[in-house]
Structures are given as C-alpha cells and as structure tokens.
C-alpha cells in the first residue's frame, strides 16, 4: 500500500505543471531564466547602491537592508523554499557575472566554458564548507541586518568571489560547495518543497545513450549543477536552471507538483553534513530570535560588538550551541531510540536518518520566526520604495508612511499554529523514517517514541520562546 503524507496525499502523487503547453513553452525558452535574472539584477543594483550610500546609518529606513533582510528573506523562507524548491537559485543574480564569463555571453549556448574549469575536490563535495560559511556569516548578523554598508560588503563579496572562483572551478561549484552562504540550507530545505524537477519517464533516459543533459548540445548547456538530470533523487543539488529542459531531445523533463517533504524519505545520499546543516539551521533560528525578538539587552550588546569580550562570548556560545549542544541532545534521544528499537542498527545510521526529521521542524521554526519580522516591520518597505537612497525622494507618495505594525496582536497564534503543524509533519516523516531504518514495524514504533518526544520537546520550547 502506498504511504501517504499526513495520511492524506500518497507519496507518489504527482501533477506535471509542464504538461500545460504554455508553461513548457516558457520553460524551454532561452529567455528563461535569463530575463528574471536581469530583472532581479536591476533590483539588486538598487540594493547595492542603497547599501553603499546608506553606510552605517540605521538600517530600518534603508532599501538595501529592508529588501534583503525583510522582503527577500521572508519570500525565501515562507514562499520560495516550501513551494518552489530552489527557485531562488534559478533567478539569483549574484553568480550571473561568473556564469556569463564562463559562457562568454549572455544567452548563447557555448559548452566549452571559459576559465580553468578545475574539478572541485571529491572530499569537499558535501555541505561541510557551506555549513561553516553560513555559521560564520551569522556571527555578523548584528551588522548585516542593521548597517547598510555591511550588507553591501556581503553581497559584493559574493559577486566578486563568484567571478573569481567560477573562473577557476568549473560550472556552479561556487554555488554548490564553496561560496554561497545560503546554498546549503536552500538545498536541504528544498527537500520539503511541493515542487520538483524530474524525468518524466526514466526508461526513456535509460535507453538514451547520448546523455545530452549531462554533456550539453546546441540547444542548451550541460547541467551547470553537475547532477544527472535523469536521476534526481532529491531536490538538494538541483539549482532549477532549466538547461535540461532545453537539451533533452525527448522532452522528457518535467516540473511536478507533489506532496511536501517526500525527498526526506529518499534513503540515498543521506549524510552527517546534511544532519549538521539541520542542527545549525534550527540553532540559528533560536539565536536569531534571541537577538532580534528577544528581551535580553546584553545579548544584543554582544551581537552588536559593544565590547570585544562580549562579541567573542557571543561567537563562542553561538558556535557551541549549534555545533555541539543541539547535536549532543539529539544524540541522547537517538541512543534511546536505538536501545528501544534495535541495538544492532548502527548508531551513525540512526543519527543521520533521524536528523532529517529536523528539516521540516527547522523550516517551520524559521517561518514562525519570520512572522515576528513580517508583522511588526514590513511597513518600513513602503517608506524605502519611495526613497531608496534616503535622498528625500517620494517616488510613490509613501516616503512619509509611518512605522505601522499590523496584526501583531494575533501574531502568536500564527506562530503557534505553524509550529504545531510543523510538529505534525515532523512526526509523520519521523515515523516513516523509523520504518525505513528499523525495517520491522514493532521496532520502528518503539524506536520512534524517543524521536517523537524530542520533536515535541523542541516544539514546546519554540512555542514558549516565541510566544510564552
């Protein structure tokens, strides 16, 4: 019998969005994703200018800060990742210069890429580097989200870094393994997304010996993300660049609607790098809440580097909490799961497999956290779109719109509802993973209890932290 997500939607249910002729036509056009990238680039040009002009002024009235850390971040966490997988990577303008340099053009197909085209070391083909890169970036959150110039420096570093590193390493190694701070969690959390790119009929790909999607042809580039488009098990490393739609001579690629979180049930290529990504993301959501929406002034002073000792204490605590404490507590529950379930199952396998239950929990925690940004602060956006550089402009007549929090009275109910839904989804995925891991159902039930307890405790903690 086919399993169902939340007991409602069969895991293998799919609706092919690209079966709609006009959708397929748009996807196959070389204007896609070039055009959205260019449009996005124009917005990011304003963001960069506003960041540079804004300097160290207060960020709440700066276009760069507001559009990156409110508009972009909220869209990313609340809309793009859960609904459209890595669609941000499709339209991200930051590595565009590096890619255009590799291709020596904007839209034309050139499969012999410019640059050194070095291979990325096999030992580093995982999320460890981006785990540390993202964690390192969050050390500066006190500056990034409050000082326009810090956001400018971060974005320019990514642009310049991508140009240099994409001239050295082939294709999208920069986005995948090296330089994008958010690439890791976009990959992991896109496993929850309700959309996917997959081959329509795997047998067609199997019979087709000349893999155009892998080596490219005159209609499109070889997969820039260096995956096998005919064998995408999970969304993790598919950057949704749409090249495989162009290269496939059989029109065998599809964008599907599907139930949420199905990739988390794929028992293939799971690893500790992704486990730690899940821990780090959950921990950062908690720390960000304490800094941005918490009441502890001393923690804000630490993150704001009011004193060097305070800042170093913040970095140390932040690192220990994310890298050691959360995995350590989780390990205790996994150990209990093994004791109750089956002591012959390797502890590492259990630890890795069950860590994927934290993926829905983590994303939901971020969504709940994001409500706390959206409702109180989004009115600033109306101000900055009218006066993006604080030069006294009033483009849309909203530059004097006062700070107006909305729905903050009912915000906790949104947060609680979201967190409880996250618990239900995590428990559902958790038991399915337990069945996969323990094989025998009675063992799976016993082994599931401590993991379910952990997920419940984390949810209660988050409810208390956010609303209690």
């Amino acid at each position: 019998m086919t399993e169902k997500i939340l007991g409602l939607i069969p895991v293998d249910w799919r609706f092919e969005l690209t079966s709609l002729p006009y959708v397929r036509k748009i996807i196959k056009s070389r204007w896609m994703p070039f055009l959205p990238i260019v449009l996005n680039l124009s917005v990011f040009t304003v963001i960069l200018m506003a960041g540079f002009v804004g300097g160290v002024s207060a960020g709440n009235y700066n276009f760069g800060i507001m559009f990156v850390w409110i508009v972009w971040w909220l869209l990313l966490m609340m809309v793009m990742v859960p609904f459209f997988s890595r669609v941000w990577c499709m339209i991200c303008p930051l590595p565009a210069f590096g890619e255009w340099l590799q291709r020596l053009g904007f839209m034309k197909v050139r499969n012999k890429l410019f640059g050194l085209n070095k291979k990325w070391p096999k030992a580093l083909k995982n999320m460890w580097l981006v785990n540390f890169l993202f964690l390192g970036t969050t050390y500066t959150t006190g500056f990034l989200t409050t000082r326009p110039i810090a956001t400018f420096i971060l974005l320019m570093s990514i642009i310049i870094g991508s140009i240099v590193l994409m001239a050295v390493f082939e294709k999208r190694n920069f986005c995948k393994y090296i330089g994008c701070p958010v690439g890791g969690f976009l990959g992991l959390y896109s496993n929850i997304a309700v959309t996917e790119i997959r081959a329509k009929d795997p047998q067609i790909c199997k019979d087709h010996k000349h893999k155009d999607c892998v080596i490219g042809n005159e209609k499109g580039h070889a997969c820039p993300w260096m995956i096998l488009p005919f064998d995408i098990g999970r969304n993790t490393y598919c950057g949704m660049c749409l090249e495989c739609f162009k290269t496939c001579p059989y029109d065998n690629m599809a964008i599907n609607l599907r139930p949420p979180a199905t990739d988390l049930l794929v028992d293939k290529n799971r690893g500790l790098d992704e486990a730690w990504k899940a821990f780090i993301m959950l921990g950062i959501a908690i720390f960000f809440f304490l800094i941005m929406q918490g009441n502890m002034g001393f923690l804000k002073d630490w993150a704001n580097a009011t004193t060097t000792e305070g800042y170093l204490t913040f970095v140390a605590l932040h690192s220990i909490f994310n890298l050691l404490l959360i995995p350590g507590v989780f390990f205790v529950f996994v150990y209990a799961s093994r004791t109750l379930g089956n002591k012959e199952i390797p502890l590492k396998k259990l630890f890795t497999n069950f860590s994927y239950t934290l993926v829905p929990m983590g994303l939901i925690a971020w969504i709940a956290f994001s409500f706390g940004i959206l409702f109180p602060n989004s009115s600033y956006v109306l101000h900055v779109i009218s006066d993006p550089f604080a030069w006294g402009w009033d483009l849309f007549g909203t530059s004097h719109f006062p700070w107006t929090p909305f729905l903050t009275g009912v915000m906790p109910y949104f947060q609680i509802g979201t967190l409880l839904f996250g618990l239900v989804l995590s428990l559902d995925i958790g038991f399915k993973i337990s069945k996969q891991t323990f094989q025998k159902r009675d063992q799976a039930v016993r082994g599931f209890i401590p993991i379910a307890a952990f997920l419940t405790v984390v949810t209660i903690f988050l409810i208390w932290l956010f609303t209690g």
Partner: protein
Amino acid sequence: MKIDKLIIGIIILALLVGLPLILAQPEEPKEKTIIINAKQFSYTPDTVEVNRGDRVTIRLISTDVHHGLYIDGYEVSTDARPGQDGSLTFVANNTGKFVMRCSVTCGPFHPYMIGYLKVKPDYRLFGSIWLAVGIFICSILLVSRRQKQ
C-alpha cells in the same frame, strides 16, 4: 468504530487543552505603576508581569536618546526623551505575552529593542503546550494502533 475512536481522541485532546484553563486561578485586579528605563537598545526591566484585569500605568524614562514604547496586541504607545518622560495607561484584559517595541528610530539596533509584557494567566501558552503533548500522545497511539491491526 473509527468514528468512536476519533470522538474519544477529540475528547481527550479537548480535556488536555482545557485542563490548564480549569486549574488557573486569576488574582484580583489591581492598580500597577511600572517604571521602565530605556537606553540603546534595551528596556529595564526587560519583562513586566501583571495579572489579567490590572490597570497598568507605564512610565517610560529615557537615559540616552529619544525612545518609544509600543505594546503589541494593546496597540498603545508613548515616547520619552532624556528629561522628558512618557506615560501610558491601559487595562490588561488580554492575557499572554506581548512584545513591547521601541517605536522611535534610536540607532542601528532599533528594530531589536524589545521588552515583554506578560499578562497572567497565560492560557494561550498552557493550551499550546497541552496541544503539543496531545499531538505527541495521539501520534504514538496512532502508530501503535496500526501495528496491532
């Protein structure tokens, strides 16, 4: 049979949610005056606790720059400059935790200048926790029941 179990499940869940509401014993309403000192980027005290029905007056004192204080859910606000205090009064009819935020741009960390108003008893928190516990119990019962079948 299935419907019976569903009804029993709903009753258990409702009891779990209702338990803290039954146990909660609210105190008699009082008049409370609270002095809050504001400085970049925190309030002292950072948490104000009152009981439902209390008539609360907050006096806001700024010790450095122009600050404000806005209370989520109650939608009341005041502001203060050094030497020029602010004040607001309200009846704490809504229970739970409410964020007190600075409403006047006071520096880089201004959006993060936050304190909490806690109006007890916090039914919302108790109810949510019991709901989470109920979901946990239901999930264990559900997977165990399927095992027996």
